[in-house]
């Protein structure tokens, strides 16, 4: 099993979430091109010091492609339909910054630290339990889906009709899922999840220097970018 320890170089999930929301503003209000590059480089640097060297390089390359490729004038001559396809580029470019920050958040935080940081900022259990269950359930969902497909293949059920296909896959999947939901809640009840005391967690979330550096750098860049572009 692979997980990341609570090390000093990895900001905690609260900080990462704050940065994602902050960069969400850049999707709507454009910021200066230089500041966009600065944000991308900061995120890559964060990947790098956490040991994700490949992701650091990929991040810069992707942004480079999105930044330079749509920029040739030959595009205007293409028919409108291809332009429609290409406009996906513009869309990706628009939401690249929040997307990159979100990807960084998902790649570098493990489930335990996300759950204990939800505890730390006192999110009510009505929200934190469903989120924790989502992490728990996602792998078994994929597994169940594959075994249903396998069962269909074994019995030779093949249909190209999407409506029929949906019924064949969705109905067993929903039945299995709602049974799993019952099982999970039984397991959780036996571990005293309803006990109204403070819970102890395997992973503790602390605020390190890196949290301040990450949050403040991004805030300054975004604020600067918005001011410079006006």
């Amino acid at each position, binding site marked *: 099993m692979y997980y990341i320890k609570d090390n000093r170089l990895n900001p905690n999930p609260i900080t990462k979430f704050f940065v*994602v*929301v902050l960069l*969400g*503003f850049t*999707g*709507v209000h*454009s910021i200066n091109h230089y500041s966009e590059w600065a944000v991308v480089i900061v995120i890559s640097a964060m990947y790098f010091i956490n040991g994700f060297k490949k992701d650091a390089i990929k991040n810069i390359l992707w942004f480079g492609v999105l930044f330079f490729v*749509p*920029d*040739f004038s030959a*595009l*205007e001559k293409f028919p*409108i339909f291809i*332009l*429609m*396809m*290409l*406009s*996906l580029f*513009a*869309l990706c470019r*628009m*939401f*690249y910054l*929040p*997307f*990159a920050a*979100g*990807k960084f*958040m*998902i790649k570098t935080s493990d489930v335990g630290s996300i759950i204990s940081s939800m505890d730390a900022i006192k999110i009510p*259990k*009505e*929200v934190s*339990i*469903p*989120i*924790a*269950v*989502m992490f728990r*359930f*996602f792998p078994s*969902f994929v597994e169940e889906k594959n075994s249903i497909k396998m069962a269909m293949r074994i019995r030779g059920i093949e249909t190209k009709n999407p409506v029929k296909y*949906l*019924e064949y896959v*969705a*109905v067993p*999947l*929903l*039945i299995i*899922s*709602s049974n*799993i*939901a019952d099982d*999970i*809640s039984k397991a*959780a*009840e036996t571990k005293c*999840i*309803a006990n109204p005391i403070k819970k102890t967690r395997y992973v503790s979330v602390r605020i390190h220097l890196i949290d301040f550096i990450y949050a403040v750098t991004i805030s300054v860049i975004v604020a600067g970018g918005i001011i410079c572009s006006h």
Partner: protein
Amino acid sequence: MKEKKLKIKDLVTIGVFAVIYFVVTFAVGMIGVIPILFLIYPTILGIVSGTVVMLFMAKVQKPWALFIFGMLSPLIMLVGGHTYVILLHAFAVMIIAELIRRIGHYNSFKYNMLSFAIFNTWICGSLMQMLWAREKYIELSMMMGKEYVDILIKLITYQHMALVYLGAIIGGLIGANIGRILLKKHFIKAGIV
């Protein structure tokens, strides 16, 4: 009627169904590769996801369940690179859907169906954010040529958004009815509901 509170079992059910709903949303979202199909995306999503949400509503007939369920997908999308617009939009939509469900005491099919139709419009938030970010989008599309931008400006308007909302509601109604048929055909027989 006595007010019922959400228990752990219901919260777990919310989490499990949120995963299924999110996977369905994501799978249907693949048609967005051709951007123009985005406009009918809410309708298709409503038809496909109707069964999931109707089963969820049949299983958890308690206040605020639908609200929490509905807020989880926008939260994931926020992390996946959408803006805060989608969260605020979903918040407003979910409050309305929750209130409609409350009128029907959480177990009447008619009100659950209406509630789902409203619920289904949350996905329009991802288009609304394009509308609000219109200037930036057009600025970025400038290199695609003037002709293209002209078509875009004509296409992205509030009137067309109203049509998309209408499509979402109609899709929701169709999806809810498909859900009801499937519920009767399979789930009640299997003792799930």
